[in-house]
């Protein structure tokens, strides 16, 4: 499985490539009325309004947005504001299933070249969002 590494706060996070649609630069954000604070606004992505989630805020980190990771269309129409991308890791070995992510801890921890990588799962993230902000 190929994963995309990116910076978020003091840590190094990752997302599987298959869960992404595109990576783009952060554009101008338009505030969304009555939206929670983790949604700073919506941006224009090729003529379509794309809500942007402040991933750092959701995971209790602090990070100025450098990239917007647009989730795959089949998951959600949502962009994640993150730090700079740090390349790919091909054929990343996943930890055992016992370390599966939960809404409270939506990542699995990988060790690569002595660095800890938190591999997020977009679906678990969306579950966490639904728990915090029920429709």
């Amino acid at each position, binding site marked *: 499985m190929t994963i995309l590494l990116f910076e978020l706060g003091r840590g190094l996070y990752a997302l599987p490539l*298959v869960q*992404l*649609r*595109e*990576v783009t*630069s952060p554009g101008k954000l338009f505030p969304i009325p009555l939206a929670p604070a983790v949604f700073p606004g919506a941006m224009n992505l090729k003529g379509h309004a794309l809500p942007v989630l402040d991933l750092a805020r959701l995971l209790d980190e602090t990070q100025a947005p450098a990239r917007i990771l647009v989730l*795959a269309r089949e998951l959600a129409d949502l962009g994640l504001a993150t730090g700079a991308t740090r*390349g*790919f890791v091909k054929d990343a070995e996943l930890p055992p299933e016992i370390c599966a992510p939960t809404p409270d801890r939506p990542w699995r921890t990988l060790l690569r070249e002595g660095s800890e990588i938190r591999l997020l799962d977009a679906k678990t993230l969306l579950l966490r969002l639904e728990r915090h902000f029920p429709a």
Partner: protein
Amino acid sequence: MRIEIGHKFYLGFIIVVGALVALNHLIPRLGIPEHLHQVVVTGAALLVGLILGRLFSRGFTANVDILSTCARNISQGDLSRGVEVRRIWFEDETADLARSLEDVVQNLRELVGHIAGASSQVNESSRNLSSSCQEMSSATNEVAGSIEQIRLGADTQAEIVEKAGRTIKEMAMSTHLVAGSSRKVADSAETTALCAQKGGEMAEMALKKMKLVLAEVERGSRQFITFGSHVHQIGKMVDLITGIAERTNLLALNATIEAARAGEAGRGFAVVAEEVSKLADSSAASASEITELVRRIREENLEVQQAMKNGIREIGEGHQAIDTATEAFGRIVETAMATRNKAGSISELSAQQTKGAGEMVALIDRISILAGENASATEEVSSATLEQSASMEEMAAAAKELSLLADRLMEVVRQFRLPRTQERHDDFTL
């Protein structure tokens, strides 16, 4: 009527004899018995003799007593009483003796009065003389003290004059040295003027070269500014390249995502996307290095520009400094020339001063001789004053002795007593 004593004896004897004769004739006629005639006649003659004797001797004896008393008074120094004899019918030598004694008393009175007055005056004069002598003695002592001070002052003056002479000689030597130094100063001032003139010419040359340097620096500064703008353009181009690399990188990233999403079909595409991504990363890294280089060049350019500005400013200040130095050299030349002239004047004045100092030394030598003479003369005056003081003391002693003699004379004169009227008249108290 005056009858001498001897004549009185003769007269009495004649009267007694005549009485005997007359009684011898008279008695028989008186009826007195004859045998009594002789007795009566003798008796009558004795009676006549006694009466005459009484008459003649009474005044004489009394006058002799008076004269004797008067002589005793005179012998005791009592001249207050006159000599007055009794008035008798027939004056004799006692009256003459009384008058003579009266003259003696009168003469003695006058003599004693004169002696008393004279001794009083002598006493007073001797006292005055004594006090005058004492005053003169004290004045002489003061004069002696003053003379001693003058002598000491004269000695001090002689020493001071000697010191002044030495000092003026040293001053004359110093003035001579000053004259020599002044000549050296004049030579040095001339040398300084020449050096300052050369310095001024050098400063002008330096100024010209400095202006050339300044022009070169200004030209370099303009080139640097142009260079800075070029570097700025490079920076802009690098920014553009960086943007392109970033966008390329993003594009490659998205291509990789698309390839991954395509699965097996997109594997070849993924390889191309990865290569593009690497190229973009390489471009970005190079652009980053160029950016860093441009940043350094800009910083160094800024530093160089600042350094050139400082250099231009310092060259301007150097320009001013050289102007000031040129002006200062000009002033130094003027001052050195003035110094040379003044040093020449000082040299001339010092020569005159040396001459004057020589004359002053001669004068001081003369003053020194005079001061020595003054000192010796003062010593002579001092010794003369001491002698005068001794003489005054002797005179005072003599005056005191004279006063004592006058006192003793007064004591002697006091033994005489004079009538009160004459005492008052002579103002002489006994």
